[in-house]
């Protein structure tokens, strides 16, 4: 079922935390709202849930305008960052709660609870109380409670952020599998770009209450709309070098690189992903001159930080990379992998 946001805004007094957000989640789609803390993504989610009022704009779910409909009548389920399990109820009672409120017959409730519990491997824990469960198990109870009644849409507010790194990776895979099985439209809020990239069919990047870009994870990464998206997505993040454009070349303090743009202008930022850079000899053509600042072995690759005319650039190099800190080198870019941005507005120059 579809979820449509039509220019929704949210203001708390004079402070506007969300500016005219429009997006449309198609049936079965996994939509991720990605952004740094305070960007308005959780507010947007809570507005969809009905937990926050809408200052302007409208929300519709499955074609029905729900802008002023109470949360309980929106037919959506939400998984909270804190899981929000009812501590005085057992796992089975927690999962059964939405069905109990809908006054389903007991036998039916029991059957559905058992089915959904089996799906998330909770069958053995149905009699336990939330305080007797580990973080990952609590998370699964929250997922089971949300999915037991097949809602029109799932909302998830940073559901994995309370788990340790290893468990998070595991739960990510489980979430993806569960979504595949149920095929229910999901809106997922996170500040973790890895979660966004791995889970989302599409990712909406927000910053300071404004939508920056909405696209597939692929295109968010390969074709960022502006400097914010380019810098936020990717780890280690994209490097930015200030300089100017002239005669099809990007010119900076330490040298120049060929770029696709024919424009001629000042105040340009060159964006280079770490994996698109290469450390070359200082005398090589088409490179920016600098010195090696640090070398870090990550495991399957080496991160080389180069200092060039006041800007630090991180380069992802082969694990066989050898070099000396302080050595003079040149930084080359893979052809066609240079992103250009306007330094003032941050918009992409194409």
């Amino acid at each position, binding site marked *: 079922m579809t979820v449509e946001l039509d220019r929704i805004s949210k203001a708390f007094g004079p402070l506007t935390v969300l500016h005219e957000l429009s997006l449309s989640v198609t049936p079965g789609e996994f939509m991720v709202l990605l952004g740094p803390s305070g960007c308005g993504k959780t507010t947007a989610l809570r507005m969809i849930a009905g937990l926050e009022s809408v200052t302007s704009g409208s929300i519709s779910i499955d074609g029905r305008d729900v802008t002023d409909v109470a949360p309980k*009548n929106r037919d959506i389920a939400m998984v909270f960052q804190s899981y*929000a399990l009812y501590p005085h109820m057992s796992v089975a009672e927690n999962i059964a709660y939405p069905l109990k409120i809908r006054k389903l017959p007991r036998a039916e409730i029991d059957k559905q609870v058992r089915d959904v519990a089996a799906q998330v491997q909770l069958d053995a824990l149905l009699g336990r109380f939330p305080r007797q469960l580990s973080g990952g198990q609590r998370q699964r109870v929250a997922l089971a409670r949300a999915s037991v009644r097949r809602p029109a849409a799932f909302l998830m507010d940073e559901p994995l952020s309370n788990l340790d790194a290893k468990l998070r990776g595991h739960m990510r895979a489980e979430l993806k599998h569960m979504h595949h099985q149920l095929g229910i439209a999901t809106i997922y809020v996170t500040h973790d770009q890895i979660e966004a990239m791995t889970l989302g069919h599409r990712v909406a990047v927000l910053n300071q209450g404004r939508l920056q870009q909405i696209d597939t994870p692929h295109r968010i990464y390969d074709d960022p709309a502006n400097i914010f998206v380019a810098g936020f997505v990717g780890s280690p993040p994209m490097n930015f070098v200030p300089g100017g454009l002239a005669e099809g070349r990007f010119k900076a303090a330490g040298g120049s690189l060929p770029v696709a743009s024919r424009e001629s202008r000042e105040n340009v930022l060159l964006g280079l992903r770490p994996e698109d850079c290469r450390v070359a000899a200082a005398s090589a053509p088409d490179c920016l001159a600098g010195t090696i600042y640090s070398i870090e072995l990550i495991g399957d690759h080496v991160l080389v930080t180069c200092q060039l005319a006041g800007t630090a650039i991180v380069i992802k190099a082969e694990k066989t990379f050898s070099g000396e800190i302080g050595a003079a080198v040149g930084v080359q870019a893979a052809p066609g992998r240079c992103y250009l941005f306007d330094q003032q507005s941050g918009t992409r120059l194409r």
Partner: protein
Amino acid sequence: MSKAVRRTSLFEPRRYGELAPASKIAVYGLLALWSTVVLFPLYWVAITSFKLPIDVAYPPKYLPFIDYQPSLHAWRYIFVDLGNDTFRPYMNSVIVAPLSTLLALIIGSMAAYALSRIQYRPSLGSVVTFILLLAGVVLAVALAGIDWRIATLVAFVLFFFLLRALGSRFRRRLGNGDILFWIISQRILPPVVAAIPVYVMFQKLHMLDTHAALIATYATVNLPIVVWLMYDFFVAVPKDLEESAQLDGASRFRIFIGIVLPLAKPGLIATGLLVLILAWNEYLLALFLSTAKAQTIPLLVAAQNATRGPQWWYMSVLIIIMIAPVLVITITLQKYIAKGLLLGAVKG
């Protein structure tokens, strides 16, 4: 070969998280002393209930069977000779105290929940208008002898008229904190100040010496305590749980009954116990509001200080049977005042 040298000092604790020997002696000594101060009167009441009037006289007799020969005469008098005259006040207390507590808990916890979750912003102007009009009604009825029905009706019409006309000018607004403070301020006045108006009110209503009057009064008097205490417990219930329940489809009332109240159970029981004890022991208002039929047990205890002088032995028996149920209830309910009920709700 290095054997740890253990220096034992009176002022060093053996282990972290333990008391030093000297502190232990001091702390337990003080505790023992205070326990004696608290428990001795109970002991004294217990042995006095088995004393003959002659044994109560000076010099004090401390040990039954040694200092004096215990007798059941006071117990026989209270239970057999007085019989119904003991039983009736006792039953009155058994009816009045729990029912008034229940009423105060129901109304008070709902009020506290509302105050903890809903933002009220009454304008100061409308509150002042209401109070002024109310005072006007009282004056009109009392001084000018106007029919109260007419006065109230006129006041109501005036109130809505004024609110419509001036409402938009009332800028100053009160918040939940003000409402809470107003509620607890009801307990600042000593009860005796309210006793006479309350007496007059029930007299006019022909409700003196009835259970209903006592129950209503006790519930009203204890309401602020319930609101004040339960407010804190409700605030401690994570909002996430309620929001989650909302999305699960529950109505606000259902959330209150099914989620919030069970989680605030320790607070509810502790508050209930406190209010029950206050109502059970209440003397002053009962003195005003009840004479014979609705007389409660504290009045009967006090009545033993009669023309013949204080009847310590009868009083002791009554005090014991008065304390007993409260003691039993407290010990029974204690295990429910367990902490950590919210554990596992929202923290990983």
